[in-house]
């Protein structure tokens, strides 16, 4: 058994001798905890490169921030990213790393006087640091996901669709704050110009609560469209919303409101001079 410069024991021999047993035990422990979200084969193909990369640099343990650990850190980060995307919790992700210690300990315990056992302390320190690396990488991945989802949501939240020649619809879903109203209004006014539409339907079926701020935003949007010569109809007023608006005392004045988008479409078609009727031809 070789003693290293810093007084630690080189347990590389133990690891190399028992590599296959440890690898099998480790992947089994991790696969058991992942409860079917990731296959055993996948777990193995993710974990074994990490183990082998670690075994290549046994002499560098436990200084995980050093340059020799670069490959291990990269592999671990990649592993954490894939776990974060697959919906694992950060604890589950870090536990996978800690499971390596359990696997090594259970192997070393089979022969307490053997060479493996004496180097365990440094190994254990290293595992703790590696666990922290997975945690870091996990959180960074989650933050990236959240940021991109927020951006996607803002884009998604403001579609202006063309229902018919000269008729646009804005289906609003979710909370209507000042920032979103601004985006909706701009998108609607732009579309009114580019499609030369005279009519727009603002559907609020997906807006959970209409308070005075939402009402004011709706009124402003309708007024702006009016200035451009377009008429707006507000649709999707559910019974509870209607009663709340009345109790609040908000007045929509001469703005036409309808219970459903279908009613609003029928009205705007009529206003634009279209006639909708059932075909008399037999199919």
């Amino acid at each position, binding site marked *: 058994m070789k003693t290293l410069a810093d007084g630690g024991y080189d347990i590389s021999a133990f690891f190399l001798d028992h590599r296959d047993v440890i690898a099998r035990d480790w992947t089994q422990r991790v696969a058991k905890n992942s409860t079917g979200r990731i296959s055993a084969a996948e777990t193995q193909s993710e974990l074994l490169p990490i183990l082998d990369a670690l075994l290549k640099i046994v002499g560098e343990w436990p200084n995980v921030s050093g340059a020799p650990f670069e490959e291990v850190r990269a592999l671990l980060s990649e592993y954490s990213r894939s776990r974060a995307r697959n919906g694992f919790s950060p604890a589950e992700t870090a536990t996978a790393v800690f499971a390596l210690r359990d696997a090594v300990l259970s192997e070393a315990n089979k022969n307490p006087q053997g060479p493996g056992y004496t180097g365990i302390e440094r190994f254990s320190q290293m595992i703790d640091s590696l666990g922290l690396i997975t945690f870091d990488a996990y959180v960074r991945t989650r933050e990236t996901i959240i940021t991109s989802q927020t951006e996607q949501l803002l884009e998604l939240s403001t579609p202006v669709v063309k229902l018919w020649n000269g008729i646009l619809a804005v289906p609003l879903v979710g*909370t209507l*704050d*000042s920032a979103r109203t601004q985006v909706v209004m701009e998108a609607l006014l732009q579309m009114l110009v580019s499609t030369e539409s005279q009519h727009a339907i603002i559907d609020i079926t997906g807006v*959970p*609560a*209409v*308070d*005075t*701020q939402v*009402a*004011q935003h709706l009124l402003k949007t309708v007024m702006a469209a009016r200035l451009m010569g377009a008429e707006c109809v507000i649709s999707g007023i559910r*019974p*509870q*919303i209607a*009663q*709340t608006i009345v*109790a*609040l*005392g*908000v007045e929509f004045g001469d703005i036409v409101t309808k219970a459903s988008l279908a009613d609003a479409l029928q009205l705007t078609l009529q206003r634009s001079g279209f006639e909708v009727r059932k075909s008399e031809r037999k199919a």
Partner: protein
Amino acid sequence: MTIVQHWSIDGVPADAQAAEFEIQSDADVVKVRQAARQLAQKAALSIVDQTKIVTAVSELARNTLIHGGGGTAQVEIVKNEKRVGVRAVFMDEGPGIADTTRALSGGFSTGGGLGLGLSGSRRLVDAFDLDTAPGRGTRVTVTKWAR
């Protein structure tokens, strides 16, 4: 008062009867509103009454933010001998309201809104209590009972 749980990210825990929030941004207004909706559902308010208390909470939370310069909100399920309901308390240490009669009359606004928030909220709930004076901050308590 029942147990108050401090929660900021995930809304109201499933078993909670009450929630307390800091109101410092628009996002906080949304959180208070969601908590009010969850508790109103739990108190088995009708859909109309749920919408009314949620809308009132939304108005008052925004008042706390805009006029009170931020503050706190407590939403809780309350019970008396006959009924279950939802109560919300909004507190701020802002400038207070000098002319409460005018503030409650409707159509009067100092913040560029429609001026219907306070008066409208009063009409949306069963009990409305306004405690304010210039320089002393504002405390609004509203209750909606299940019918």
